[in-house]
């Protein structure tokens, strides 16, 4: 491994000696000063180019003595900058937004789509995310990502993601580069990402660059707004279930900016009058009840620009779900009861990043971060009667904390090489479960106390990572991205090393068409123990152990990328993914709120997934949107000794679906009205159903016709996931009415979820009813749908 890294570095240094002059700088939005990620810088003379990184920065080293740089970005007016290359140059460019369809805008788009060496990556414009209609009118990043080919949702309305046959815990969610564990609110009906705070969304489904690690199936890389560095802007919004705000602006003009956004549901506030009404109606004057549920999230970011070469970013995210109930009963001065239940779960993510341009060719980013997911349940009760007092307190805690230090370097030694290298150290603290119980009694001065803590001990683990990759333009038609990622995971007394090669390549067939291929080996050291399709706070993250090995995957993806008539990007990709050491729950396994002995409840086995994805995407003009189609197949096989499931036979994965179609269209009629519509279709999810009953008795037993419930019959399951639920399809529409006010702009959004009220299956169950007509028990299999047609309205004001 060491030899390979040294060779790679030597190669980079050697090639750097040929370089002549370097142009570097930052591309920003002219109006807000926000850095633009993925903007292209292209020299029309040498036909060499580069793209801006996560910090909006580019480096382009050229051998020629002069250059004409074309700077372009989707939705912005392209600029041309002629420069003389007699020395290293700095070029900071501010692009102006454009709503018109013109050639130069399209070029920027095409460069990214066709020329990039990256396969299985999708960029999602935030404005398009905001336009897609979703449930209760609440814009949701993950729900929009679920509409992309290769990404499947779990159950209806859920934010769970299943990417190319992987499980929901195989996705890495990065918020400003920091991993986030629980990305859901309200059991998964809403994601934790507030779209008002988001600047850029990138999804990687395969062919992962070497700087990503630790999950098998996808990386969703979300970057938040830095804040406007010229003037103050903000907005508020009120919807059916939540209210939100965002404010951004300069603290020191063009030097220090801030951006704050927040969101909170107010169902609990609306519940209070109802509870008061109920209490009054029931004549419960002496009793006071207070209960409710809410979630909130808060994003804050401060960016400081020391100079053109140095910036500091401080980001903070805090989001919580809270369920609470309080009950107070004052019968008289000598008899009282008090009960309090609190259930809180959520994340804190904090990071401090420092960008520094060491040389025009070498850029450094140092990150220190802390992330915490916790799940706290507390219940306390106090009873007083004359001189007797009893107090009972119970608590349950679980969670995970990470402290991360990371260093990333971007190095552009020649026009043909864009090198990244760096490393990361991550310390995990797992708190699988801790419960405490405290009882105290005082009977007229005679005290009794009981205090105990039960649970699994805290587990510490260290994860380290080193990587190096080179985006190498070999000639005009061939470009590769080759990298190595080395990770090591140390838990208890076990150390798991893993060397993960990554490779992707692009062949430019002509200016509009390219063929790409990619390979990635990934290793994952964490598992999520979960029992239901709901994302519940009781789901527990646990590390690998001496017995449970890390999960691994190898994925090959290949496809064609085409730009059609400068208005649409088309791609077709095929993939094959083999996964090992996957976990499935044993027959009868349940993790309901406990991780006790979890290693005994799972089996390790193999899985594979393959499919074809088609995407037609239009991000410019009045009509934007995409059409996605996925054909896929995902199987599991658990046939190793002691890990046998389904008799060792192959069975479909839980979210194996043959067809997924999504159509998203947004149309801007004029400055006052825009509308969007989305339609999704997918084959039904699988479920395990005991389709036959057998009588296991060795001898005939006496039975009666009416004795259905008291016989010896046993449900017989022929195979795991043997039943496929009915197909799912749904259409949503949304219309925005904009109006310019004296100060700012107001937008009224009217949206309808499930327009044609299709009853989509959420779960199936056996219903039993007595028929008086036929005088027997009638059994039917019923599907339960949870979301019928749901209209919603929201009001937003921006200044």
């Amino acid at each position, binding site marked *: 491994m060491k030899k390979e890294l040294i060779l790679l570095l030597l190669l980079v240094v050697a090639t750097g000696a040929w370089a002549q002059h370097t142009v570097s700088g930052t591309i920003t939005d002219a109006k807000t000063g926000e850095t633009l990620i993925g903007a292209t810088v292209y020299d029309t003379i040498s036909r060499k180019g580069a793209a801006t990184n996560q910090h909006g920065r580019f480096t382009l080293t050229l051998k020629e003595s002069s250059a004409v740089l074309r700077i372009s970005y989707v939705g912005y007016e392209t600029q041309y900058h002629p420069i003389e290359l007699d020395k290293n140059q700095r070029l900071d460019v501010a692009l102006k937004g454009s709503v018109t369809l013109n050639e130069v805008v399209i070029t920027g788009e095409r460069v990214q789509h066709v020329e990039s060496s990256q396969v299985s990556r999708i960029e999602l414009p935030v404005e398009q995310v905001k336009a897609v209609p979703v449930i209760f009118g609440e814009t949701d990043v993950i729900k929009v990502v679920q509409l992309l080919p290769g990404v499947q949702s779990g159950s209806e309305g859920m934010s769970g993601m299943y990417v190319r046959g992987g499980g929901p815990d195989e996705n890495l969610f990065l918020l400003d580069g920091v991993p986030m564990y629980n990305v859901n609110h309200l059991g998964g009906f809403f994601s934790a990402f507030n779209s008002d705070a988001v600047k850029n969304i990138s999804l990687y489904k395969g062919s992962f660059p070497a700087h990503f690690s630790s999950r098998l199936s996808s990386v969703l890389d979300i970057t938040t707004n830095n804040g406007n560095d010229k003037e103050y802007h903000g907005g508020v919004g009120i919807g059916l279930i939540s209210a939100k705000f965002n404010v951004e602006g300069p603290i020191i003009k063009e030097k220090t900016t801030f951006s704050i956004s927040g969101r909170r549901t107010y169902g609990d506030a609306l519940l209070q009058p109802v509870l008061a009404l109920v209490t009054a109606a029931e004549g419960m004057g002496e009793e006071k009840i207070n209960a409710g549920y809410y979630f909130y999230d808060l994003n804050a970011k401060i960016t400081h620009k020391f100079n053109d070469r140095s910036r500091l970013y401080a980001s903070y995210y805090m989001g919580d779900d809270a369920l609470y109930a309080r009950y107070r009963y004052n019968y008289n001065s000598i008899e009282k009861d008090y009960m309090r239940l609190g259930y809180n779960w959520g994340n804190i993510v904090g990071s401090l990043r420092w960008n520094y341009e060491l040389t025009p060719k070498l850029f450094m980013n140092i990150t220190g971060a802390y992330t915490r997911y916790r799940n706290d349940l507390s219940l306390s009760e106090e009873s007083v009667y004359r001189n007797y007092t009893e107090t009972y307190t119970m608590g349950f805690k679980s969670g995970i904390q990470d402290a991360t230090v990371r260093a990333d370097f971007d190095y552009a030694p020649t026009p043909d090489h864009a090198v990244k290298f760096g490393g990361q150290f991550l310390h995990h603290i797992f708190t699988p479960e801790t419960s405490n119980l405290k009882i105290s009694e005082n009977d007229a001065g005679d005290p009794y106390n009981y205090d105990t803590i039960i649970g699994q001990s805290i587990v510490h683990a260290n994860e380290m990572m080193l990587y190096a990759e080179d985006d190498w333009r070999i000639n005009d038609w061939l470009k590769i991205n080759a990298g190595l990622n080395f990770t090591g995971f140390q838990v208890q007394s076990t150390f798991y090393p893993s060397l993960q090669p990554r490779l992707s390549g692009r062949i430019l067939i002509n200016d509009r068409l390219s063929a790409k291929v990619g390979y990635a080996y990934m290793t994952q050291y964490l598992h999520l123990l979960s029992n239901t399709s709901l994302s519940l706070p009781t789901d527990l993250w646990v590390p690998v152990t001496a017995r449970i090995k890390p999960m691994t995957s190898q994925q090959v993806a290949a496809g064609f990328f085409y730009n059609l008539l400068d208005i649409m990007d088309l791609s077709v990709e095929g993939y094959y993914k083999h996964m090992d050491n996957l976990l499935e729950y044993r027959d009868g396994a349940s993790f309901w709120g406990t991780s006790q002995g979890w290693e005994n*409840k799972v089996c390790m086995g193999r899985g594979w997934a393959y499919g074809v994805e088609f995407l037609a995407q239009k991000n410019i003009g009045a009509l934007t949107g995409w059409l996605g189609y996925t054909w896929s197949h995902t199987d599991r096989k658990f046939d190793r000794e002691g890990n046998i499931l389904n008799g060792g036979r192959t069975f479909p994965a839980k979210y194996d679906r043959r067809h997924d179609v999504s159509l998203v269209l947004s149309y801007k009629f004029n400055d006052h009205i825009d509308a969007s519509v989305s339609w999704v279709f997918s084959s039904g999810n699988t479920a395990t159903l005991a389709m036959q009953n057998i009588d296991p008795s060795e001898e*005939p037993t006496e039975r009666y016709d009416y004795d259905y419930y008291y016989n010896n019959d046993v449900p*017989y399951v022929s195979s795991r996931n043997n039943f496929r639920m009915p197909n799912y399809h749904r259409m949503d529409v949304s219309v925005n009415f904009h109006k310019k006010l004296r100060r700012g702009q107001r937008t009224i959004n009217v949206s309808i979820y499930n327009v044609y009220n299709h009853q989509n299956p959420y779960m199936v169950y056996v219903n039993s009813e007595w028929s008086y007509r036929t005088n027997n028990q009638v059994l039917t299999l019923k599907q339960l749908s*949870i979301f*019928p047609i749901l209209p919603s309205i929201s009001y937003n004001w921006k200044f």
Partner: protein
Amino acid sequence: MKKIFSPIYLTALLLTFVLTSCEKVIEFDGDETESYMVMISKPESDTPWKVRLTESRFFLYGDTIATIKDASVSIEVNGRTLNSNITNHGNGMYDLGYTPQQGDSLTLHVTTPNKGTMMAGCRIPHKPIISQASCTYDTTHYTEYYPDTVQSINGDITVKLTLEDPAEETNYYMLRMRMPSINYNYTTESYDTIWRYTHINVNDNVLFDMDATNELFDIGSQDYYGTQILFTDERINGQTHTITFNTSIYGLEAGHPLVEVFSISRDRYLYEKSLQAAGEQDMFINLISEPVQIHSNVTGGLGILGGSAVTKIKID
């Protein structure tokens, strides 16, 4: 009026609206509803071999289980087809006219006019070797309500068995205990003795990891508590091991316990384990846990052909 605002009424109303407005019946037809042939046969050494043949029932049909009355049955013993005297009782039960011996390899073929053929095979293991057995009583007798010959008894019985496990292969065991119980027979107006299987509780940290769950299924206490205890020799292979277990008894005493230690085939072990696990799943657990698959070794049908050899010990 107050009742209308009751939280229970409001919640029920809301749930009724949500659930009834979003329910739909899923229809089945064709092959999905077809039943399978089911064979249940547990041949035991030195005991006449028999089989029960039934049909499985589609889960939405409320009928009783149908028996197979017109099957053509043949058996093979140690690779040779045996022309034994097979008796069809007409209620799904077939006596196969052969008494298996330890070490026999058995194959059973069943053909029906409508459902085709199913077959299964198994081997009869060797009887387990119990070198020692003892029993201690912590019981109280009551005589006030019954004649002198019949006493009421209440308390615990603890049994110790010493098992000699052969080393050459993986062995699967099943432990049961029967207690004689006296019941009043209203027909004959006298007391009858019935040997009932009793719940036993094994306290053995060597055979079972008492803190962990079952390795095959996620069902906890059934490993060491129930009317039949299943275990393998994984932790005691080739060793002499003493198993201690106890049972609580109450009722009318008729005598001393009978302990049955079975050596069973691997398929039989998996089948019994899966039946236990399925039995422990209740409605709530079913919603949040993986369903249990009943193990089968029958080709062309469902069920089990699982051999056993038993050592019975009556303990004084």
